[in-house]
């Protein structure tokens, strides 16, 4: 259709609805159009713009960070790895921005608003305006807290499809017996001779031991010195005994003979005569009891692997641009 037709169509439109002639309406429509148009163009990346640009100064900064943290120059492999991690972070950050998380995440919003309040305390703008200013200032990619938050939120979104089967859980529990198994335990009585109050504590201990072995009904409660943690211990693990008596005592008690008095066993406090009153062997983990805990723990471990995989996939959708001058670095 040509220009004349267009004019005729316009005239028809205008005669159909006299209201359409209103300058106010035109003003609103044009203004609204401009507003939307500007909104779409300014400061927003196009939705399919997926690229990360690395500059020479980024690489220089990574090198400086490495030196600060380890007090030496990074090798080529180490610098490459630093760069790789930096690119991972940048990909996650750009993806977060692409998905609009920088505008919706409450932690990011709060942080940007606080920054703006701090930097421009006299500003009378409302939250929406301040946020727009913060974005325009590039704060989203430069504020450390906002960066870490967006990267963290994106990382969490990558954790999908993590399953744990019963068989895997059983295997996990078996492989982490030290965490889930039940330790060996011993219950015992002891008679304590304090090295602080006995000048000849060894001799005194030997004498007392001989007496205990000879007399079947010794009044155990009245022998020896008082001990703050008591004379009788219920079934306690080796670690629990070590907490109170030290490692050497714990070892000897866990390995000692049952039923008869033995010793003297040394602790940091003095000497002890010990009688094991009952024993329990270490037990393999009870799967049903530890199942939920193990599931959470295994899931957490798997999440890290899945995250790495998903991140690699995401990264492959990005174009990575390195500095123009050769640095020997790969994307």
């Amino acid at each position, binding site marked *: 259709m040509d220009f004349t037709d267009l004019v005729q169509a316009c005239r028809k439109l205008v005669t159909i609805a006299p209201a359409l002639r209103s300058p106010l309406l035109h003003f609103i429509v044009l203004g609204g159009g401009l507003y939307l148009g500007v909104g779409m163009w300014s400061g927003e990346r196009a939705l399919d713009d997926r690229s990360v640009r690395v500059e020479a100064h980024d690489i220089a900064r990574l090198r400086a960070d490495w030196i600060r*943290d380890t*007090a030496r120059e990074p090798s080529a492999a180490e610098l490459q790895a630093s760069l790789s991690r930096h690119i991972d972070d940048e990909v996650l950050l750009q993806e977060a921005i692409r998905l609009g998380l920088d505008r919706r995440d409450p932690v990011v919003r709060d942080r940007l608003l606080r920054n703006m309040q701090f930097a421009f305390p006299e500003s009378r703008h409302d939250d929406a305006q301040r946020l727009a200013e913060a974005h325009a200032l590039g704060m989203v990619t430069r504020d450390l*807290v906002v960066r870490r938050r967006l990267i*963290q939120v994106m990382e969490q979104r990558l954790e999908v499809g993590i399953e744990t089967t019963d068989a895997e859980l059983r295997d996990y529990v078996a492989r982490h017996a030290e965490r889930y198994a039940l330790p060996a335990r011993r219950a015992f009585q002891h008679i304590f001779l304090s090295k602080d109050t006995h000048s000849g504590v060894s001799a005194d201990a030997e004498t007392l031991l001989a007496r205990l072995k000879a007399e079947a009904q010794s009044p155990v409660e009245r022998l020896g010195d008082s001990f703050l943690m008591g004379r009788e211990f219920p079934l306690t693990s080796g670690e629990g005994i*070590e907490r*109170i008596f030290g490692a050497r005592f714990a070892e000897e008690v866990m390995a000692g003979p049952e039923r008869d008095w033995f010793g003297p066993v040394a602790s940091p*406090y003095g000497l002890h005569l010990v009688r094991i009153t009952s024993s329990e062997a270490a037990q393999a983990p009870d799967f049903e009891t530890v199942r939920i805990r193990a599931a959470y723990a295994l899931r957490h471990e798997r999440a890290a692997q899945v995250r790495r995989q998903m991140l690699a996939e995401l990264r492959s959708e990005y174009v990575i641009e390195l500095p123009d001058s050769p640095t020997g670095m790969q994307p």
Partner: protein
Amino acid sequence: MRFLAFGVALLVVLTGCNDDNSQLSGGAGGTGGSGGAGGSASASHCRNYNANRQPFFGDLHVHTKYSLDANTQGTIVTPHDAYRFAQGERLGIQPYNEAGEPLRFAQIARPLDFAAVTDHAELFGETEICTNPDYPEYNLPECQFYRSQPENSFVFFNLVAVGLPELPQFPVPPGTPIVSDAPVIGSTGSIPRLPYCGINGERCLEAAKTPWRDHQLAAASFNDESDNCGFTTFVGYEYTLAPASNNLHRNVIFRSAVVPELPPATQEYPRPELLWAALTEQCKSEDGCDYLTIPHNSNLSAGLMFETKDRFGDDYTAEFAQSRQKNEPLAEIMQAKGQSECLGTTGASAADELCNFEILPYNNLTGDRFNGLNTGPPMEGDFLRSALKEGLVQEQKLGVNPFKYGFIGSSDTHIGAPGDVMETANFPGHGGAGASSSGEGLTDVIEGNPGGLAVLWAEENTRDSLFAAMRRREAYGTSGTRPIVRFFGGWNLPLTQCASADFAADGYVNGVPMGGDLPARPSSAGAPRFAVSALRDPGAAGDPAEPLQRIQIIKGWVEGGTKMEKVYDVATASNNNPAVNLATCETSGSGAASLCTVWQDPDFDPAESAFYYARVVENPGCRWSWKQCLAGGITEQKCADDPGSVPEGFAGCCSAFPKTIQERAWTSPIWYKPAGSS
């Protein structure tokens, strides 16, 4: 849709009908205390239950990667990793090599009994998929459920995330919101893994992914609810109030797995009293929720932590004081950023030479970052001994003591390494506000330290039992070592208690333990007696500890309106002669393996309010910083002869900063209130 709705109904019913968490966890063995608040006699107990109580060692102040803004060295340690570390597993820490493997490792020689990860709540944010109408999931039943029953949705999301065992059918009670018209399905009576979480559960897992939820998941992963009771976790967070960098932070510790949907933080509740009001509202005991708050680093609060005015500048009222006392039974007396017991440089405590201990040379969190701007010298009013005295004054005025604090220690580690608190050369630095992990130099600012421990006297290692100990203040703090300390007060404690067959039983029968109030004074009684007994830390391989040097009792009281304090030496190791060889860090001096005494207050005046607490002090040993100096080849000789050759990272080695340290424990106080006072 109806299938989905039924599943939601099932969970509503499950969570509604069962207030016993162990059943919901699907098979955890019976334990003491997940049902009742006080560990009722009918609940089954841990294997090593002890009615006379036993000491449990833990760390209630731990930061991980979720403390975003404190995380300046790229900590990637998660709450899961932190709990594994607390149980004695090895942890890789930064820096990392080219394959992403850690270059340093940390591991504690002795596991902790309990721990709480407490990241900054201000950065937790909320789950988006159920609260953002743009998401397609917004209108699904599980999201509606989430929005209408937030307090139940944690349990719901997490059960589902790992799959449920086969469940019997439950009838849906009428009137259950959203789903009460859903049909019961299935004739086998079993429910397979609930499908509306998505094919692989990802929708529910997504909802579970916020930092707060990860905290709860980690705590659930490592809390041992079997009767083995090997380890206890607490869900917690840090409320990070710090006006102008003056520290008013508090750690919030929850007793059980029932916690608010989003922890109240400073943005919405910018004063502690607002925090407590919010917690009271959102954490109700009838729902099985309980909390307490623990202020820390009062030494860095520049006069604010214990000021006696509310946010409107008005004096405390009795009600306000009551709220503070009820919500805050404990305070951190020791952590990586110094001690908060007493100031040894000025004021009444300057006379107590042992107060000259791990004092930071500034009074708020700005520290020395801006050359003395925005900070000043430490202030006596910020220290707990002074606050306790002020508490007595307030009690006389208002009838309630707002500063009735028991003591604990913790680390405040920002690298997720709870309990790594011994003075060793491998102290990796507490991260965060400390120095970075560079190769050449001290791993932390010299005035920092590895932190302390919280010790609780409880019957067994369960959440309920430990939390009850925190509430009644039967707790003590240490500066990192593990001496075992008992402290009792009473009118009739037997003078021979130290020789008694059961010191603790005598104490409980004839008096009150640390953290308690002396019973009303019988008219015939003289001065109160205090029985204190301590066993030295036996140490462990890689964790050497020194023997005991002495026990002191510190009394604070109000005399005619004036605040007074006095330190009494009540037990001392004889023939001790302690010494430290600064060239090798070898220590000498026999010290005492144990000390015990019953002491009666010689200056007691029944008309004066008072508190008493015990301080147990070890023989000196090298401080962590000096151990690192020696390991780095910096000796006293080198500092004297060739100071120019000392690398900058080790500059603190040649400074006047102390090279030795006397580790110690502080028991919670026992309070005395005169008869007839309001």
